[in-house]
């Protein structure tokens, strides 16, 4: 098959999956919907694997889409390396997520709706990566956001889910507004929206309307506007606040959308426009990405919700990728995107399994000891976490190493006093914090814990180390036990879809998919396809390893200390408490927005309160919509009033005019008519019938006429 029809069929089956599952919702069908979706995904993967890896030449097909006057915008399919990897990546992750979901949501009444939305999501995401021009990308970009709205708000009777869905959509909309302006400016400077037309030759030097900017400055502005859209979708400062809330959706959906695929759409877009990212814009993007990753990592350290930790970790890792794109390290950044998709999806699915096991308890402090209860999940979790931290033998090691390499090269290029040096520093801090919160999470969720561990844990650090050693021994023991032949069979037999999907993703998170040598990024085939940075710093993996060990030691102790305080019911006091609160709430960013810009969203939550008393509702409405109320007041008090005043003026004018009509005009007419009547009467009197009078009159008139004649002539 030629690529065109492959892509056509591939997209088509997902669309069919969406429509079919949404329209047929009887009980039998509901049971089957998950498996139908899985079949679709498998077909999709088969289709896409028959696509050729584009080597040097990009493949593109163009269809006539719309033209207005001289402006032609085509529907264009563009397949380059970036597209190819995303195309397959999305479908593979979607496959695992669907597999996982069949069990996770099997009792849910709207399961067909859920799978329909998943299919629509995959469709939109594939459309996005295939898009050959910005308008087309924008189209799928918003569709992806729409799917995320649907999936976050999947449990639509849940108040928090609705608020999170609306928040995600609106913040993405705000980002889209920036992106749209970016598209406008880019059209202004290139007279075209195709990605392959963004070349220096096409630069239109006569772009108008921005008197204070050079063409270079305009380009920077355009890129930063596009970055506004990226910041919303990929959860970067200052628009990242929607992502932690988005965890209200079903956990597998979070894995697919808010970890592995949708949020990387922003990074993908940056990669697409990377040739036109100017150095200034690049620096801004890199710094914002770096800052986001540090702040998010700090917040992740203080979360108790298992999914929230992962959510902040996602923001943090996205910050890495965005920084990479800003630095111009497209290959490294894209590499990290790919590896991150696997291990983060793995982590989320593991978290889903944990939550399922804990009967929808998400507070990590209430977990513990799960190591022995769900060992498969634990191992998968361990591998994925190691990958996230960037330990050897994992895919994360390779991609993180290449990113850090690029960062160090970027930061030190212009000496050590340049602002660029902040980028590798921030990434270093983030690496440390990443190790910290992942260890903390592992300890809290999986490791052994006594029923009342207070006195034992207080005693000494030595004890805690003992605990650690014991835990690792447990791991080994558990491993050995399951190696017996019968046990292996039992193990496989008992293997549920949860286990299969997390194992699959854990395997994908190891090195061998990406490089023949687990220790050397030089040999990663991925970076041969993509352009890579030449400079190589061999000390970076060692530094990461060192940071990990330090973080392990501190985090291990700190976590047990934290748990001890929790069991004792001790509260943090003074400055500690303030810092804790600040970090946990992600630096009050959310409430800051709520108070200033996004008071509308706040009103959503207050209005949606379960209290149905009417007066309360109306009072919140009047309170919350301040701006719109002002406009409404203008409308009713001024505009409508003005109209009313004018109409009353007209009415009083017409009253006056009617009076004038009555008294003056009509009066005059009456008077005249009366006058005429009187005249007639008087004249009638003169018609007395006396012939002498007539003669006299005639004589006077003749005399008069003669007189006049004499006077005039």
């Amino acid at each position, binding site marked *: 098959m030629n690529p065109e029809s492959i892509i056509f069929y591939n997209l088509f089956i997902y669309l069919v999956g969406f429509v079919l599952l949404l329209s047929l919702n009887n009980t039998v069908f509901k049971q089957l919907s998950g498996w139908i979706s899985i079949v679709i995904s498998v077909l999709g993967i088969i289709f896409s694997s028959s696509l050729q890896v584009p080597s040097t030449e990009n493949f593109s097909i163009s269809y006539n889409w719309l033209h207005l006057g001289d402006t032609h915008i085509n529907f264009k399919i563009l397949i380059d390396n970036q597209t190819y990897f995303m195309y397959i990546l999305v479908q593979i992750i979607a496959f695992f997520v669907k597999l996982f979901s069949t069990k996770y949501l099997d009792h849910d009444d709207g399961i067909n709706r859920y799978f329909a939305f998943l299919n629509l999501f995959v469709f939109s995401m594939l459309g996005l990566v295939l898009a050959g021009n910005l308008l087309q990308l924008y189209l799928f970009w918003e569709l992806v956001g729409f799917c995320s709205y649907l999936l976050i708000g999947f449990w*639509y009777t849940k108040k928090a889910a609705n608020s999170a869905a609306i928040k995600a959509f609106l913040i993405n909309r705000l980002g889209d507004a920036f992106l749209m302006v970016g598209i406008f400016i880019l059209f202004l400077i290139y007279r075209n929206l195709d990605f392959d037309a963004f070349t220096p030759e096409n630069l239109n030097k006569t772009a108008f309307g921005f008197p204070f900017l050079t063409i270079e400055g305009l380009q920077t502005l355009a890129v930063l506007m596009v970055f506004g859209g990226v910041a919303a979708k990929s959860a970067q400062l200052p628009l990242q606040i929607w992502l932690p809330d988005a965890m209200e959706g079903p956990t597998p959906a979070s894995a697919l959308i808010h970890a592995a695929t949708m949020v990387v759409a922003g990074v993908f877009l940056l990669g697409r426009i990377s040739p036109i990212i100017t150095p200034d814009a690049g620096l801004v993007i890199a710094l914002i990405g770096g800052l986001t990753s540090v702040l998010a990592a700090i917040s992740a350290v203080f979360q108790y919700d298992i999914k929230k930790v992962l959510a902040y970790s996602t923001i943090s890792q996205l910050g890495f990728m965005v920084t990479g794109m800003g630095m111009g390290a497209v290959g490294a950044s894209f590499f990290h995107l790919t590896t991150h998709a696997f291990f983060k999806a793995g982590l989320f699915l593991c978290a889903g399994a944990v939550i399922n096991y804990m009967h929808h308890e998400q507070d990590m402090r209430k977990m513990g000891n799960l190591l022995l209860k769900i060992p498969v999940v634990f191992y998968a979790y361990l591998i994925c976490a190691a990958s996230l931290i960037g330990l050897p033998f994992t895919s994360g090691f390779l991609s993180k190493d290449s990113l850090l390499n690029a960062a160090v090269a970027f930061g030190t290029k212009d000496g050590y006093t340049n602002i660029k040096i902040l980028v590798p520093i921030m990434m270093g801090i983030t690496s440390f914090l990443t190790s910290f919160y992942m260890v903390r999470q592992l300890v809290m969720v999986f490791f052994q814990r006594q029923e009342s561990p207070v006195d034992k844990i207080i005693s000494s650090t030595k004890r805690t180390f003992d605990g650690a050693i014991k835990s690792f021994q447990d791991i080994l023991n558990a491993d050995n036990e399951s190696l017996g032949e019968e046990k292996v069979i039992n193990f496989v037999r008992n293997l549920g879809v949860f286990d299969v999907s997390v194992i699959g993703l854990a395997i994908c998170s190891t090195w061998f998919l990406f490089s023949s040598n687990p220790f050397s990024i030089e040999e990663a085939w991925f970076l041969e396809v993509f352009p890579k940075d030449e400079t190589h710093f061999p000390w970076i993996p060692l530094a990461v390893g060192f940071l990990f060990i330090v973080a392990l030691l501190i985090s291990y102790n700190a976590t047990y200390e934290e748990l001890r305080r929790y069991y004792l019911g001790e509260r943090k006091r003074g400055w500690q408490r303030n810092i804790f609160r600040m970090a946990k709430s992600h630096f009050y960013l959310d409430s800051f927005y709520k108070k200033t810009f996004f008071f509308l969203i706040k009103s959503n939550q207050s209005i949606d309160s379960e209290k149905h008393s009417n007066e309360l509702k109306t009072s919140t409405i009047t309170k919350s919509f301040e701006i719109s109320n002002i406009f409404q007041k203008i409308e009713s008090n001024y505009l409508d009033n003005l109209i009313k005043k004018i109409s009353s003026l007209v009415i009083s004018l017409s009253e006056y005019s009617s009076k004038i009509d009555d008294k003056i005009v009509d009066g005059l007419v009456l008077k005249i008519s009366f006058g005429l009547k009187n005249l007639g009467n008087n004249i009638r009197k003169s018609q007395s019938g006396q012939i002498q009078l007539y003669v006299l009159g005639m004589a006077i008139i003749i005399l008069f006429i003669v007189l006049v004649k004499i006077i005039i002539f």
Partner: protein
Amino acid sequence: MQSGLLSSLIILPLIASIVILLLPESYKGSYRWIALIVQILLLINTGTFIGGFEANHTGYQFLEHFEWIRLTLGKTSILSIDYIVGIDGLSLSMVALSVIVFFVANISSFSINKKEKAYYSLFLLLSASVIGCFIAVDFFLFFIFFEFMLLPMYFLIGIWGGPNKAYASLKFIIYTLVGSVMILVVMIALAMSNVDEFFTSEYKRTVFSFDFRILSDQANLLNGSLLNIENPIKIFGVYARDFMFILLFIGFGIKLPMVPFHTWLPDAHVEAPTPISVILAGILLKIGGYGLIRIAFGFFPDVAVNYGLLISIIGLISILYGGFNALAQKDLKKLIAYSSISHMGFVLLGIGAFNVEGFNGAIFQMFSHGLLSSMLFLIAGVLYERTKNREIQNFKGLAKIMPIFTVMVAIAFFGSLGLPSLSGFIGEFFTLFGSFQATTIPKVIPILGVLGIVLSAIYLLWTFQKMFFGEFWTKEDFKNNLEDLNQKEIIMLGILGVLTLLFGIFPNILFDLVNHTVIQFF
């Protein structure tokens, strides 16, 4: 080609209207079907026009031309008023929209069972005059249809409307009449300044004409006449042509409606019965936009260039003002009415850009808004019919008991807030795009206009969430009344929904029709 096919778009509903009037009351049940059959015939008829329309030709097609009035003015001149109908891309798109909207409104009218005879005959009368307005190629004819529309509209709101119908219908008619007076002034001035060269040489007398084709060509302007381009005469301190343009702008702006001449709209919508709201929002507002493009910009292009900025600013104000007001509404229908104002602001923005992209975008936006606002008002009607209540806060969690309805509402709402792949997006995007590419307009206007799409997302999603999500709850016990959509409603909303999707994905269906007509303006 004088086939009379085009005129049948006007004559058919007129005849049907009279037939319904003459039919005795015992045939009461047949009125709606007669009306529906007429609407279906109109749909088919329009279909043949779209099929036979040659998109690459500029100028009017399917012209039908009859002499009507030849008024001798003194010894030297003749005033010629003709019956000319014809369509070009712009009018064809609007005719297509009207037949769709009228068809849907006709189905929606089935729920009206008060004075059916009068209702359907007025309804058909309205249909005839609206279509007449779009296909008239003579200003005088256009004006007659434009004015005549008010009569059925006044009664349709005034008799079948809500509790405050008298006030609303009067407000509607006064506003529109004020606009009409302004248009009338311009019409007379235009006709008295334009000369039909061909007939002038034939009759050996100056022939003043109302023909659109003559009015749009500035070569026909009589030397020394009021509207001649070189004429230095000023009226109230502005040049005569400028003055006339402003009159037209306000006249059609009231109809559009643009802020601050919009206050008739929310009242009229709230009081009007559902099908009339559908027609009002779906098609009557478009006559304002149509008039602006065809008449104000078509006949005064030299003046229009200078007023692009003003129009854009007013468009921007309409977008934001309408949006913020929509946010403050508690009545669903009023919210939709204000969202209409906001969306028609995009039309102004596109027209103000005065370039191909902007004009195309504006026409598309009108078309798409016609479909979407019809859907929105039908949705409000569905709720009102079941509960006699439209307050947003009285409903909650409707998704649970009305799933099909929720899907339809989702299509309409997301279409209105400009989700790509639904038609609203294309219109909004290209009006903003055109505005951004225009040399005369500072970039800050379209950039602020982009905020309009954020705003519409806020008020529509907020409403959607409040009414449809959460646990089911209503203020009073409406539960027994709240059934999911019946077949009639599924057909109406389904047709519009599918069209929205179709035009959202294949916008070129419309752009191809109007493109060549639009290029002519520049």
